[in-house]
């Protein structure tokens, strides 16, 4: 089930908090919405869930207007939200509301808890569990519904180091197995890149980049995007910073910066080049196919690409 936003705007207190002329989220893939705090990430997620209506424009899920009553969306909230009853009852309630029979609901609820390894907590009251357990339980509820669309709002927020690492290892295969159209909202770059196939960069309520994670990471295009991706931005005549993958040319180009090659290392499948732009030293990976530069060469670095600074 794909998600499409057309000319969507959202206002709060008379202020535009979201403005998205057009955005498509592909069916069956995991898309991370990455951006700083207050970028409108949760707002976007709530629009997709049909919890809020856009001020203008259309939010289409599977071709139909987003509406919470359609029951095609599972939502993992940033806060932990449970009814004051056992975890099992909480999971069963969701399934029952989605139309499962009592027996089926029980079976799938238990399966959900097992999936996250917390079946021993089934009879525990929801207000008597730890943060990590609650996060797992929330995930179990969201996944057990097996909805075509899965929305995760900061699924890893507030977890301690060990729990974070373990869950981050477990989550990608789980998401892969369910093959739902998954949208993960996060402000954490590593989390985003570990979990997702595609990335949407949201800054100040505007989509600044969208594409596969490789595309976005290697070609940030905007300074803000680069910042969100955690790259350092150099302002000497343009924007630059780092990419592990591609990006340098030996030919002068109008959009390129002049650099002097300092050292070249032969790595198995590419050249590792260290060059200097003025005072600044950058690391560049050059694909094998290119002619290797030699120290002292003047090369041109594409400014549409970011380079890693040393």
């Amino acid at each position: 089930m794909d998600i499409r936003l057309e000319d969507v705007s959202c206002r709060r207190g008379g202020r535009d908090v979201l403005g998205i002329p057009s955005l498509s989220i592909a069916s069956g893939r995991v898309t991370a919405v990455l951006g700083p705090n207050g970028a409108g990430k949760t707002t976007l997620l709530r629009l997709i869930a049909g919890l809020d209506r856009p001020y203008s424009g259309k939010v289409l899920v599977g071709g139909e207007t987003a509406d919470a009553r359609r029951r095609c969306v599972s939502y993992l909230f940033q806060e932990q939200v449970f009814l004051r009853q056992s975890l099992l009852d909480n999971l069963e309630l969701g399934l029952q509301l989605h139309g499962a029979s009592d027996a089926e609901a029980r079976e799938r609820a238990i399966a959900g808890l097992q999936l996250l390894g917390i079946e021993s907590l089934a009879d525990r009251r929801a207000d008597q569990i730890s943060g990590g357990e609650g996060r797992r339980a929330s995930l179990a509820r969201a996944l057990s519904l097996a909805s075509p669309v899965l929305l995760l709002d900061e699924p890893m927020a507030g977890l301690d180091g060990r729990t974070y690492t373990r869950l981050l290892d477990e989550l990608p295969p789980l998401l892969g197995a369910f093959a739902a159209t998954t949208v993960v909202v996060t402000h954490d770059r590593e989390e985003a890149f570990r979990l997702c196939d595609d990335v949407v960069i949201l800054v100040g309520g505007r989509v600044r980049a969208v594409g596969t994670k490789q595309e976005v990471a290697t070609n940030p295009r905007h300074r803000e995007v680069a910042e969100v991706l955690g790259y350092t931005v150099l302002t000497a005549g343009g924007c630059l910073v780092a990419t592990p993958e591609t990006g340098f040319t030996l030919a002068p180009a109008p959009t390129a910066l002049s650099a002097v090659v300092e050292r070249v290392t032969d790595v198995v499948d590419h050249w590792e080049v260290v060059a200097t732009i003025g005072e600044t030293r950058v690391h560049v990976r050059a694909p094998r196919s290119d002619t290797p530069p030699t120290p002292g060469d003047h090369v041109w670095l594409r400014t549409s690409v970011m380079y890693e600074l040393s």
Partner: protein
Amino acid sequence: MDAGTLVITVRTLAISGAATLLSIIVGVPIGYALARRQFAGRTVLLGFINTGMGMPPVVVGLIVWLLLVRSGPFGDFELIYTPTAMVVAQFLLATPIVIGFTTASFQSLSPRLIDLLRVLGAGRVRMLWLLAREARLGLLAAVMAAFGAIVSEVGASMIVGGNLERSTRVLTTAIVTETSRGEVERALALGFVLLALSLVVNVALTIAQQRNRP
């Protein structure tokens, strides 16, 4: 307890119980709507409700009396000096209390909980039921406050019920009568029955309220 006292006690329970029940049926959805919806005049309305929570029973009784007497607008129903009239008056007294408490207890629930239930696809009625269960601490407090207020109220019951021995005499009006008759011991005994009744009802509701509480 003699037969007369028993009859009055049962009647008190029936009248105030019916009024409380009606006020829950009407007041809880209104309180729920006030807690969940934003609309023009909501704050003013809440102000009125809060005033209504402290309405003097005699004033309510007087208004109901004026409405229900034969010369009044609803006189044709011949309801004045019947238990029904008392239920009406007590209902009017109890409903603002129920609405006030209900609004407050629904407002204290996490808005995320409502989001969760919406996204799980809960319909209106199911949503109200599930949230009411979550807010039952506050809602049962509403029931206790409402029942406690009307069962101990005397002014309205006296005015609209007429304190008729065989049909509308309740514990409070009986206490007034016995006191004015000079039967202080009997009045005191009825007072104890009233206290015991409040105690039993409140203890029962408190047990329901605190059940499953960590």
